[in-house]
């Protein structure tokens, strides 16, 4: 078990190193002047370009720059934003709560809706309700997140203005709980609808597979009541792939729910990323990217460990 965790952690570090190196090379490989010009933007005056080249030391050999970059990264120093002149870590810490709340709330919604929907479909395959749900799911999968988001705002502002829902900047729940919900409900639903569609599909498929297994037939044959067969024997085994998917999704989303945050103007990590890309704020882009990769790597390790508890056939070696 511990050997497994250590090996996965080492592999995770390798992935992080690869991500950091790739990002570094993407931005810094090339002649000093063209790199500086790219960072400054096509319309920036030559003095700005020169200044960027000198402050970042772009004249130095690439290996030297790379070692400096790695050294800073290892000490947890993500640098300072070009634009706001605040440390990148401060910016990230300020954006983190919005993303965390968004993902946590949406996850509760989509997990409940997705698994319930999947079980309803799987217990009566090919029935009317199964068909209705699956058609909805297909529409949900086809629906781009941002289109759904815009429609939600359209409805909230034009059709149901009395609900008091509005897109807007993140409000911490401890400051103003009412405002928190008014801001968060739409992003939660938007993110959850898209994810729930995937989970219905996953739960339904996995549940149908499980219910076709021999041991389920055995349970029925020995006279276990149907709901017990479905929930106690079926659902438990069927949930394994759902848990795996859930872990992977959480990891990926924590790195930045780019679209949802953008549509609703929530200042989370995704929004931070988009803004820094538009502004060419390099230290923030790199910091956010490495953080996102770290979330994914950790989530994947946790999923593998959880897997061994859920599925007794899997042994960690």
């Amino acid at each position: 078990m511990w050997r497994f965790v250590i090996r996965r952690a080492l592999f995770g570090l390798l992935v992080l190193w690869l991500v950091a190196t790739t990002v570094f090379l993407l931005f810094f490989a090339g002649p000093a002047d063209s790199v500086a010009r790219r960072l400054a933007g096509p319309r920036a005056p030559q003095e700005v370009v020169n200044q960027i080249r000198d402050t970042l030391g772009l004249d130095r050999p690439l290996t030297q720059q790379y070692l400096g970059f790695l050294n800073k990264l290892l000490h947890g120093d993500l640098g300072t934003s070009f634009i706001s002149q605040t440390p990148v870590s401060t910016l990230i810490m300020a954006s983190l709560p919005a993303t965390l709340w968004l993902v946590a709330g949406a996850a509760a919604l989509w997990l409940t809706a997705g698994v319930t929907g999947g079980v309803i479909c799987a217990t009566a395959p090919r029935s009317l309700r199964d068909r209705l749900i699956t058609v909805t799911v297909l529409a949900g999968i086809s629906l781009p997140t941002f289109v759904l988001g815009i429609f939600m705002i359209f409805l909230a502002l034009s059709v149901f203005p009395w609900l008091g829902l509005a897109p807007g900047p993140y409000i911490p729940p401890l400051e103003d709980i009412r405002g928190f919900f008014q801001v968060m409900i739409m992003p939660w639903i938007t993110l959850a609808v898209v994810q729930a569609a995937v989970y219905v599909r996953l739960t339904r498929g996995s549940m149908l597979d499980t219910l076709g297994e021999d041991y389920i037939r055995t349970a029925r044959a020995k006279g276990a009541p149907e709901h017990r067969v479905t929930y106690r024997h079926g659902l438990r085994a069927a949930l394994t792939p759902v848990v795996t998917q859930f872990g992977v999704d959480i990891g990926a989303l924590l790195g930045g729910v780019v679209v949802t945050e953008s549509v609703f103007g929530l200042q989370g990590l995704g929004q931070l990323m988009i803004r820094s890309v538009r502004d060419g704020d390099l230290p923030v882009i790199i910091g956010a990217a490495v953080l996102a990769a770290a979330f994914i790597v950790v989530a994947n390790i946790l999923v593998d460990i959880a897997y061994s508890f859920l599925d007794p056939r899997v042994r960690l070696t």
Partner: protein
Amino acid sequence: MSLIEASSEAEHTPGITPAVRGKGPWQLAWERLQRDRAAMVSLAVICVIVLLAVFAPVFAAVTGHGPQDQFPETGLTPEGLPVGPGSGFWLGADSLGRDLFVRLLYGARVSLLVGVLSTLLATVFGVVTGMLAGFYGGWVDGVLARLLDVVLSFPYLLVAIVLVAALGAGVPLMILVIAFFSFAAMARVVRGQTMAYKEREFVEAARSLGASKLRTMFVDLLPNLVAPVTVLASLLIPTAIVFEATLSFLGLGVDPRTPSWGAILADSTDYYRVAPGLLIFPALLLLITTLAFNLLGDGIRDALDPRSDRLLSRK
């Protein structure tokens, strides 16, 4: 020899009429697909959209509105707001007085181009890589499989954003980025299928006949991969279209002047209260297109593999 003739007589199943050319798996699949109403409607919808995109310049000529032409006189009301749908502007005008209908048609060109080209690229490279990895195995396969896992576990929107930041926006970059991620999905599926088929006796039979590995891969394995590859490709196209629209919506996709569904929707966010058509038409078009591709993909899956679990059970 009499014995042989007698036995062959005995084995001729009376039900099969001795047609010279048997119905191939493709013909059978096509016949099954034709019976699938949702898939056929989707196919028709896709054909219409493709035709509209191809003949976009014709519509531009008929209406007299180029995709980039601004008509501050006819396209905007005296207060400077976009006009609604009417005889001049079939679906209304946007905030700069440009013809929404014409721009949507040109946007369809971008969407279809990105969707089809990136999927095509991904399919070619994915099939070759997946087949090589699955067929040869060994450490090459080990490294490649792990790499594909890593690529697939990354959220591709985030990676695309970083790449756009580093290399600049544009259609070719977008096609390459989408192709890269679709490639990973395709390569993984093809690798799995190849590994499964590699163990089948007909591959061993080919080897016993002295077939080279290359011939075995392309003559014996490839025809068996066409079904899963077709299904996956038809499902990758709508993903690519949504991805392009999303990036353009975020202002990171194609050049902002190029008409693209995502960019048109991004423009609409400030105006939809006065001109809801600006939001509704592109959103509907995007939704219809992706839904049609998804339904068709589902139909193709059912038609190629009748035993598979149908997502939409229609009978």
